[in-house]
């Protein structure tokens, strides 16, 4: 067995050892599968600017080898795979009838999804209004046809019936002292929108997780961190320490809860409120984000007991629920279905390396939500994904040394600091000597008018030098404090102590709690109907009571806002906010009407108070 084969076998065994367990949600239709069958069922297309799409390789002729072949294309051309051919009306009707029948008569069927509390009942009015805009925008944007999800289900079922498989693609990367196990999961379709009231549908879906191990090729490996790719999160927030209670494990296998339809990965089961952003509302989103940050800083709010910031929602983002309930099919160690042998894509296999196009239908959606993703190595635009070339930096681990190198790194840093302190100390001595000389010089010149110019020059030099000396001493004090902290840190590590597992997390994405999901059926109906009712009310006002439009609108909006606040149990905060607003207006009115009287009273009160304070001090 040569060295390469041995290495290959070793990597395969590592991937096998830590391969995750995935729990899907009741109603999920697509599971992690292989790309070979998908490609065989698909055709390859190219869309060049100002041209009709051209089929490069028809269905049945496409293979991974042919996909990997390099094809020069003009600038602006998009190469994509097309998996689904639209269903005819009869097939579509038959599919939907079967679904309806199952939903009505087989309530425990694994394939039937029940949403529970609607997402609109969980968010406020502005978000509902922005959501209505988003739904309307789907009519203007390119999107995956409505029957594509149904057709994909049928084709995927056929594929699984012929060759049932549950597999992942893996690679092992060595970076900055870490050994990274990267697992890629391929799904033939993302039906989050059509199947689970989510944001988008698209053909094919690539999801990924990383496991970070300390050790080396020759020594024993130890899992330290794990990071799951999830919608909007990046950097430190993506990763969890292996001993974090949030990371559930089956033996050495981390557990993933996959979002229904979206297949996004979560550490805990539950329903996650996620937000999408419309590009034209981006400036407003940024503005509201900034205001929220300022308000939270002022109110010292937003962090829970563990110091993490909770879920905070921006009214200009569209809320969607990602259902990661984990009550459906499970794949992995000791589960209903097992993983096939790992497919290694390292060294980079030709189809991963050479195919830079989309892995599914190009819907021409300008905000890309409905366009298929690129492959594991590439983004939609053909550039290399960060997680591919920098998996350590992607999860914010580039500043964390592996545990086996930690003491060495600290020691090295302490030596550097010591060297720096010596150099600063030497510099301080020199400058101090010069400052003494200047001090003596300036004192001697004080009563010599003919040395006025030298005196002034000396004064400037003393000020500059004194400032430099103060800066150096401050630097020296900082270095000493850091050295001291490093010594204590080293001592703590030697005693076996570790910093809290979640200290690095800024924004943790938690599933919604039962308190957040407490709204009743009435509240859900209200949430679904309120925006439409407001619009109907507005039209009625315009037609029948135009003279009272302003009063009517104020009344209508107030009524709806009060009902909503009642449902959300926020009536008290609404009353307080409104009263505060009225106080501000009333204060302005009073200021406008009685400006001089208020000034006189304020001056008198201030004068009286000062007098009282002074007299009290005098008597005391």
């Amino acid at each position, binding site marked *: 067995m040569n060295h390469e084969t041995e290495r290959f076998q070793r990597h395969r065994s590592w991937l096998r050892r830590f391969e995750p367990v995935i729990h899907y949600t009741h109603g999920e239709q697509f599971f992690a599968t292989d790309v070979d069958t998908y490609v065989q069922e698909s055709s390859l297309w190219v869309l060049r600017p100002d041209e009709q799409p051209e089929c490069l390789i028809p269905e049945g002729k496409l293979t991974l080898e042919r996909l990997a072949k390099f094809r020069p294309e003009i600038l602006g051309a998009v190469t994509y795979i097309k998996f689904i051919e639209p269903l005819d009306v009869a097939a579509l009707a038959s599919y939907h009838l079967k679904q309806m029948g199952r939903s009505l008569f087989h309530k425990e069927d694994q394939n039937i999804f029940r949403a529970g509390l609607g997402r609109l009942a969980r968010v406020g009015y502005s978000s509902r209004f922005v959501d209505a805009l988003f739904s309307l925008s789907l009519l203007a944007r390119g999107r995956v046809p409505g029957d594509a999800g149904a057709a994909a289900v049928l084709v995927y079922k056929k594929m699984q019936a012929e060759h049932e498989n549950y597999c992942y693609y893996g690679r092992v990367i060595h970076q900055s002292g870490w050994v990274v196990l990267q697992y890629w999961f391929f799904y033939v379709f993302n039906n989050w929108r059509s199947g689970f009231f989510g944001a988008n549908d698209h053909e094919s879906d690539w999801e990924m997780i990383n496991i970070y191990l300390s050790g080396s090729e020759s020594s024993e490996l130890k899992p330290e961190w794990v990071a799951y790719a999830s919608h909007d999160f990046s950097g430190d927030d993506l990763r969890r320490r292996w001993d974090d209670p949030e990371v559930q494990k089956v033996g050495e296998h981390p557990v993933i809860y996959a979002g229904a339809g979206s297949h996004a990965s979560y550490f805990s089961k539950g329903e996650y409120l996620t937000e999408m952003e419309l590009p034209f509302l981006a400036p407003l989103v940024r503005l509201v984000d900034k205001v929220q940050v300022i308000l939270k800083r002022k109110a010292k709010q937003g962090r829970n007991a563990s110091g993490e910031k909770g879920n905070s929602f921006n009214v200009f983002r569209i809320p969607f629920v990602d259902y990661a309930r984990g009550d459906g099919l499970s794949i992995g160690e000791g589960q209903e279905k097992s993983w096939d042998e790992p497919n290694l894509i390292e060294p980079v296999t030709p189809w991963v390396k050479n195919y830079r196009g989309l892995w599914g239908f190009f819907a021409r959606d300008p905000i890309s939500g409905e366009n298929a993703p690129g492959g594991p190595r590439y983004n939609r635009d053909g550039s290399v994904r960060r997680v591919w070339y920098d998996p350590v930096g992607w999860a914010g681990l580039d500043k964390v040394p592996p545990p086996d190198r930690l003491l060495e790194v600290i020691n090295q840093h302490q030596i550097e600091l010591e060297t720096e302190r010596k150099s600063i100390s030497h510099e301080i001595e020199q400058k101090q000597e010069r400052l003494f000389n200047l001090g003596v010089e300036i004192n001697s010149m004080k009563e010599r008018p003919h040395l006025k110019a030298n005196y002034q020059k000396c004064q400037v030099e003393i000020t500059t030098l004194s400032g430099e000396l103060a800066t150096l001493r401050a630097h020296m004090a900082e270095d000493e404090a850091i050295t001291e902290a490093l010594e204590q840190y080293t001592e703590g590590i030697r005693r076996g102590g570790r910093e809290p597992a979640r200290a690095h997390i800024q924004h943790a994405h938690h599933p919604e709690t039962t308190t957040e999901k407490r709204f009743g059926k009435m509240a859900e109906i209200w949430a679904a109907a309120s925006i439409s009712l407001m619009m109907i009310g507005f039209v009625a006002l315009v037609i029948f009571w135009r003279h009272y439009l302003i009063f009517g609108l104020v009344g209508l909006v107030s009524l709806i806002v009060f009902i909503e606040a009642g449902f959300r149990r926020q009536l*008290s905060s609404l*009353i307080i906010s409104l*009263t*505060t607003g*009225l*106080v501000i207006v*009333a204060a302005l*009115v*009073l200021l406008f*009407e009685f400006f001089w009287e208020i000034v006189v009273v304020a001056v008198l009160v201030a004068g009286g108070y000062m007098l009282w304070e002074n007299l009290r001090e005098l008597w005391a």
Partner: protein
Amino acid sequence: LNTSPTYNFIIVNMWQKRKTRYTPEQHRQVTILAYLLLLETVIMFILGVYHFTLNHGPQLLSLWLSGQSMISGQAFTFDDFIRQLTIYAGQQRLIPALVESATLFLLTILGLSGAIGFFRIWRIAWTQAVFVQGVSLLISLILYFINKPRHIFLLMIYGVFMVFYLHYADVQAVFHTRVQE
């Protein structure tokens, strides 16, 4: 009077709990606010009566009770009364004025129960008091933009002062409306 040991134990225990839950200063602030709310209630009642009288409320009431038409002086049915009331209301801008006095009477009742709540330290009383101030400020502002009667400035000043006082940390602490830092 129930003088059983159990009853006495419960009463003494409740009283001690109540006494130990708040500082004397907090209690003093709440009591002052309760009296201020009572005073506001009286002012609102007087204003309500004033508006009712100003807008021919007693005459209309006596008309309704005696069954006399205001315009012709003839006996009429309830439907006639409503019709004539509507005509009269249109002429005299009666409806807004009646709504205004009715709101003031309603606020009087709410303010009174709020004041009792402050004496008894009911948790809802704080929100109720804020609500009363909100509605009273709203009425004042509406009246200010319609016909600026001088007395609404008193209501406005009183409302602004009360809202500030209600947000005083000691008062909020008693009603648990502020999270303890």
